[in-house]
């Protein structure tokens, strides 16, 4: 994979948007897209966490977990951390979120007020773990991984922001009672996803 980080960033935001083509982070996408301000808050938190956890996970994966890396590191034969990848990734994400929460509470109360409630939700947001797993599967380099993590976060922010805008307007329209809530949100997301398919010709990413 020799694509420039810029292309990967662009692709992660538009053509391979994590919500519209990867179906990740749907739970919080649906739950928190009722109002624009909460949507932006959650989007920013996701962007921040996904950028840094992707970088951290890349370092940990390539220097410790990858088959053969532990041998290089310790010189002991027969050690292989590959099987622990999933558990380590989720632990890194949970620990990072916890540390950020503590740090933000110390540094800036206003930022804590704005992002604080979203941070615990991020641990179980599959977008974050998904980005780390995709990064391993697609074999990105370090810079590309950071670009991918950041781009995916921005893509998620864009998606939830658009959805929140639409849902605020939807509140004033007449919808069949059985379709209200999740039903109409799903269908709107589907239409948005089809709109995003327009970008497909712009960048190619495998």
């Amino acid at each position, binding site marked *: 994979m020799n694509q420039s980080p810029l292309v990967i960033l662009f692709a992660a935001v538009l053509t391979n948007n994590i919500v519209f083509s*990867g*179906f990740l982070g749907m739970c919080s996408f649906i*739950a928190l897209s009722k109002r624009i301000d909460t949507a932006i808050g959650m989007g920013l938190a996701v962007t921040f966490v996904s950028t840094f956890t992707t970088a951290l996970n890349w370092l940990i994966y390539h220097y410790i977990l990858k088959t053969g890396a532990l041998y290089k590191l310790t010189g002991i034969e027969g050690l292989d951390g590959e*099987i*622990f990848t999933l558990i380590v990734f989720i632990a890194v994400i949970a620990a990072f979120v916890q540390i950020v929460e503590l740090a933000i509470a110390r540094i800036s109360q206003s930022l804590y007020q704005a992002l604080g409630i979203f941070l615990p939700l991020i641990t179980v*947001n*599959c977008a974050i773990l*998904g980005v780390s797993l*995709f990064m391993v599967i697609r074999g990105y380099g370090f810079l590309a991984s950071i670009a991918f993590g950041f781009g995916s976060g921005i893509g998620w922010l864009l998606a939830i922001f658009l959805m929140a805008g639409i849902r605020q307007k939807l509140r004033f329209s007449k919808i069949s009672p*059985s379709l209200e809530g999740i039903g109409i949100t799903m269908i709107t997301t589907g239409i948005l996803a089809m709109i995003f398919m327009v970008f497909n010709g712009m960048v190619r990413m495998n």
Partner: protein
Amino acid sequence: MSRIKTILTNGIWYENPIFHQVLGVCSALAVTTQVKNAIVMSIAVICITALTNFTVSVLRKIIPFSVRLIIEMLIISTFVIVFDQLLKAYYFEMSRELGPYVGLIITNCIILGRSEAFALREGPGLSVIDGIASGLGYTLILVSIAAVRELFGAGKLLGYSIISNPDYHARGLASAGGAFIVMGILIWIMNAIRRVGGEK
């Protein structure tokens, strides 16, 4: 006996994890391009939910309340890794096809949700049944969405050609946008059935 029946009907229909509680939606959309993938994914979720529920329920009196989330996550990750390795060993093509979505079962909120809501309070036997019931509810939705998408999107069902007319094209249904819309319509239908049935 009636208790078991209640748990089963709740998991599959009345409190269906996907429609009623909006849990585990991500994988429901991602793996439903083919019925085969949906079935494998469902089996994974049924087994992992049942096993996690069982383990959490057995340990529920030992786990300190403040760290229970981390412990639950560890239990879930362990079972997911076991399943992932089994899939890689015995069914490599499927493992490739499902890609990261097997690993993402860890963050599938159904499993954590069930162990929080049920296994922490009830005995191991009932917890296993509850896990299976929620898993079956998940299966019901996954297989229905996958059937619609595979049949009308690719003209096939379980890999067998059903619509063989070469002029038939509905790629939109197999695409990401189609998944969302099929799911939206399915939710619509299920809510309508509930309404007619006199619930709520």
